């Protein structure tokens, strides 16, 4: 879905039309839209390599051999996540223990949401018809995890990290016949993750075919805004080149967001080229105006373009200090942040560009101007979406260093790989204007020990060496250990001789996880420190933003989490506990099977607002008034939010069976008084004081009809909300989020499935089976609800709604056309909708 000329322009794929490249153009058509066993390739950097793979779930021998017959393997197109696919029936197992992709006996248990890993193999045949070109390299954006790659039976290498990109030079092992086989082994074994990771080649793969060995180094182009001034913006461009030979030149060209050339220069090619330019009257990047430029870089021999890259960038300056806090282009700004994991709900970890962009858009619409992709690098498509949509990013690198959190996690590979992985992260993201900070770790065990402090320095210093334009942070959930004082030689700039906590001494900005109670005391003790909440509890939203908005040194907060995700099952939500039980203990009551979803997000797994989002909308000023109603608990029970949870409340006034009983209505408002009216009669009113922090509760005896809340400030009405009792379910509605979508195999389109009453209102709190049929050039990539409990798979044509809603995700078949969807549910009028794929 990258229609922007900056992101996947046609020219990114082609270097044709140049004399030197023409001789290497291959027989047959270019990259094809439909899956096939052999894709013919042209000369060019960054050619899509996602289509036409063969896949086998399970281990075996000889799978890497070029002559191996993979005809019985399943055809897949990338991105692909096998952990989200339904598990096969298991003879002898209780069927109740297997729900779609979820297995009650999964090794990861609640951590991975009962999803299953294992071993998988991929093979791809491709054809290079001419003599070997100068350089052929394959780039994997992300493979979870422990991958090994072979070309024509030659082992190219292994890569442990499941989130960092890696590349292999294929040139030495290309077949002279032109027929090549790439084989990839992926092992997601043991307990290696604290959340749902997905399994397989779940991000894009790209192929570079270059006519000479000389090239622009991978991630070798860096663009930095050095200064803003009356003459414009001073920009520095750094370009690194590999395997240079005499007679080469570099052409660098900057285009604005209308495609107009605003600067161009030609220079003799050197290994490390530095250029400085001034952009007059630049259009600055910010969340409100995410203006982008693109730097085109061409490596040329005479008129022949040997290599070409496009680097989107933004012109902006981000600065931090304790007196002013965070500024963006000189203006104070707070990080209105949310933490998220990388899965796309029903699609698992598969990083379809449109799904990544949708996630960013959903959160931006809820007022988030910053995200913390936790606790690892997200896909390039995600970061590109943040650039385009104006969402700032804390780029987190690692969840573990040397000490494990779970037995088979990345700590095993850390010592051998951290420097390579860190470089891949920093160099690949450094041009994204959305990235404002690097986090070197999340709640790292041992960070306060002498070894941990030294490692903290090594990581922070390496980030500064690779990219000295951004500060380093870390997410710290506790500060045991001594106060320490670094020397000037060791300290970060300006901090020599400054005493600080061992766990934070080398951090430019300090991230606090769940330490709201310590903020003011820590500020008093270390007034020079700039810090922010890297994680916070949803229930603290009121107090956190009350403090953050009046404290310059506190530059923002990131709630855990902005959106529901698979894994860490049941840390959110609430427990029904005996009324006599200690509330703290009740909130800590563990969940287990069949919980598969963390359920602590503002937004649910399919993109709809949950109760915490109502409160946040008011706290952040998106809405003057929101109301929700506590689900009435059974007799003798109370509803107790879990630690990351929220009361079980809905925007609903449909509570059959509760007639006459007092229901708890929660009102979130920026007003100073609220009045509730039931069927036109005032039934309750309450003043909202500063101490209430924008949240009050009222009791209203339930009677069907219309519950209306009216908020006032200074005597004037500022907002009004209604909840209406719905009737019986009457129809299914299909509502495409967009009328058109991409037709490619990498394109996905989203269609909301809703159960309506006779008046066309969504029936809340309703679970109904819906059968979906599709006619046209698309397939179902995912179909399911936001139910935090496992009720089935996400790949079947039948799914159950939850809270009256479900979501269908269509994947293009590789050809354009109109797709007609129909939805049937027993006793309800069917629904239908069309989506035009182009």
């Amino acid at each position, binding site marked *: 879905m990258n229609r922007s000329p900056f992101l996947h322009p046609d020219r990114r794929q082609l270097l044709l039309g140049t004399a030197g490249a023409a001789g290497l153009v291959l027989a047959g058509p270019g990259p094809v839209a439909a899956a096939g066993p052999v894709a013919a390739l042209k000369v060019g950097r960054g050619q899509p390599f996602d289509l036409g793979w063969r896949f086998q779930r399970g281990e075996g021998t000889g799978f890497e051999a070029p002559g191996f017959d993979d005809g019985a393997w399943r055809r897949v197109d990338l991105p692909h996540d096998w952990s989200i696919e339904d598990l096969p029936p298991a003879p002898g197992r209780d069927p109740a223990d297997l729900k779609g992709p979820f297995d009650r006996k999964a090794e990861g248990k609640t951590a991975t949401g009962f999803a299953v890993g294992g071993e998988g193999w991929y093979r791809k045949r491709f054809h290079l018809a001419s003599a070997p070109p100068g350089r052929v390299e394959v780039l994997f954006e992300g493979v979870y995890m422990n991958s090994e790659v072979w070309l024509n039976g030659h082992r190219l290498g292994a890569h442990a990290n499941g989130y960092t990109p890696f590349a292999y030079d294929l040139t030495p092992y290309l077949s002279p016949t032109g027929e090549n086989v790439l084989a990839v082994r992926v092992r997601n074994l043991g307990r290696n993750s604290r959340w749902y990771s997905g399994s397989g080649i779940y991000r894009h793969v790209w192929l570079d075919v270059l006519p000479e060995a000389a090239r622009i180094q991978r991630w070798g182009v860096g663009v930095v805004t050095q200064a803003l001034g009356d003459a414009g913006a001073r920009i520095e461009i750094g370009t690194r080149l590999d395997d240079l030979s005499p007679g080469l030149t570099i052409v660098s060209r900057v285009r604005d967001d209308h495609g107009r050339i605003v600067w161009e220069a030609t220079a003799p090619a050197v290994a490390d080229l530095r250029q400085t330019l001034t952009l007059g009257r630049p259009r600055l990047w910010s969340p409100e105006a995410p203006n982008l430029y693109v730097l085109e870089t061409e490596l040329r021999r005479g008129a022949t373009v040997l290599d070409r890259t496009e680097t989107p960038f933004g012109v902006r300056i981000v*600065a931090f200090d304790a007196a002013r806090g965070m500024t963006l282009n000189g203006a104070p700004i707070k990080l209105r942040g949310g933490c998220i994991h990388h899965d796309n709900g029903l699609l698992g970890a598969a990083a379809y560009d449109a799904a990544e962009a949708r996630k960013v858009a959903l959160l931006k619409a809820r007022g988030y101007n910053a995200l913390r992709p936790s606790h690892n690098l997200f896909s390039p498509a995600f970061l590109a979406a943040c650039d385009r949509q104006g969402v700032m990013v804390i780029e987190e690198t690692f969840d573990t260093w040397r000490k494990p959190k779970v037995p088979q996690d990345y700590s095993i590979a850390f010592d051998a790989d951290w420097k390579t992985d860190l470089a891949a992260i920093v160099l690949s993201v450094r041009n994204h204007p959305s990235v404002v900070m690097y986090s070197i770790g999340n709640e790292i*065990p041992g960070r*306060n020990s002498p070894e941990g402090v030294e490692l903290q320095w090594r990581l922070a210093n390496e980030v*500064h060496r690779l990219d*000295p334009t951004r500060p380093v942070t870390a997410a710290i959930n506790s500060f045991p250990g001594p106060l320490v004082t*670094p*020397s000037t030689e*060791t300290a970060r700039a300006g901090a020599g001789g400054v005493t600080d906590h061992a766990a934070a001494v080398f951090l430019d900005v300090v991230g606090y996880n*769940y330490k709201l109670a310590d903020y003011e005391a820590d500020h008093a003790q270390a007034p020079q420190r700039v810090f922010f909440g890297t994680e916070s509890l949803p229930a603290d939203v009121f107090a956190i933003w009350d403090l953050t908005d009046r404290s310059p040194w506190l530059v923002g907060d990131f709630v855990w989490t902005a959106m529901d995700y698979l894994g860490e099952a049941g840390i959110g939500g609430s427990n029904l506990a005996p009324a006599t039980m200690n509330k703290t203990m009740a909130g800590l009551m563990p969940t287990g099977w069949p919980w598969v979803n963390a359920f602590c997000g503002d937004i649910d797994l399919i993109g709809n607002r949950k109760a915490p989002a109502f409160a946040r909308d008011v706290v952040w000023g998106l809405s003057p008034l929101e109301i929700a109603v506590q689900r009435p608990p059974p007799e003798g029970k109370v509803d107790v939010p879990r630690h990351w949870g929220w009361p079980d409340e809905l925007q609903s006034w449909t509570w059959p069976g509760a007639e006459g009983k007092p229901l708890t209505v929660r009102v979130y408002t920026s007003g100073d008084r609220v009045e509730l009216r039931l069927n036109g009669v005032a039934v309750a009113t309450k003043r909202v004081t500063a101490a209430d922090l924008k949240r009050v509760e009222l009791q209203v005896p339930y009677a069907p009809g219309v519950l209306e809340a009216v908020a006032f400030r200074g005597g004037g009405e500022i907002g009004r909300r209604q909840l209406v009792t719905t009737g019986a379910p009457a129809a299914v509605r299909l509502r495409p989020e967009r009328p058109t979508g991409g037709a490619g195999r990498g394109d996905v389109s989203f269609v909301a499935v809703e159960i309506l009453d006779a008046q066309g209102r969504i029936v809340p709190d309703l679970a109904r089976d819906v059968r979906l049929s599709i006619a046209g050039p698309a397939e179902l990539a995912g179909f399911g609800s936001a139910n935090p409990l496992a009720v089935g798979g996400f790949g079947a044509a039948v799914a159950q709604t939850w809270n009256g809603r479900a979501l269908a995700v269509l994947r293009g078949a590789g050809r354009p056309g109109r797709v007609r969807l129909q939805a049937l549910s027993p006793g309800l009028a069917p629904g239908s909708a069309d989506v035009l794929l182009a």
Partner: protein
Amino acid sequence: MIVMDAPTYPPAAAFEPPVVAPRPLSVRNYSAAELMRMPAAWAVVVKHLPGIKMMVANEQAKAMTETMTVADFAVFIGGDSPAALAAIDAELSALQAPAGAAR
């Protein structure tokens, strides 16, 4: 147009171990694991926060005892009031921090 230079964060020259200050024994300065390794100190903690014994026996929490303090764990067991933590610290201050505990 605003006039400003972008800040930079240059790498430091070399690593030298920072100078370490002595630290008083308390529920915030020491990790739970460090206090667990001091029987007298741990007895004080358990006396005031009996629920912590069950808490740190949990597999996931156990892994965090090296980097979380008693004050952090107290949040989860309802013992995080300033008065409760101050009472523990008052008794801990009477105990001698073992030599070498602070590096």
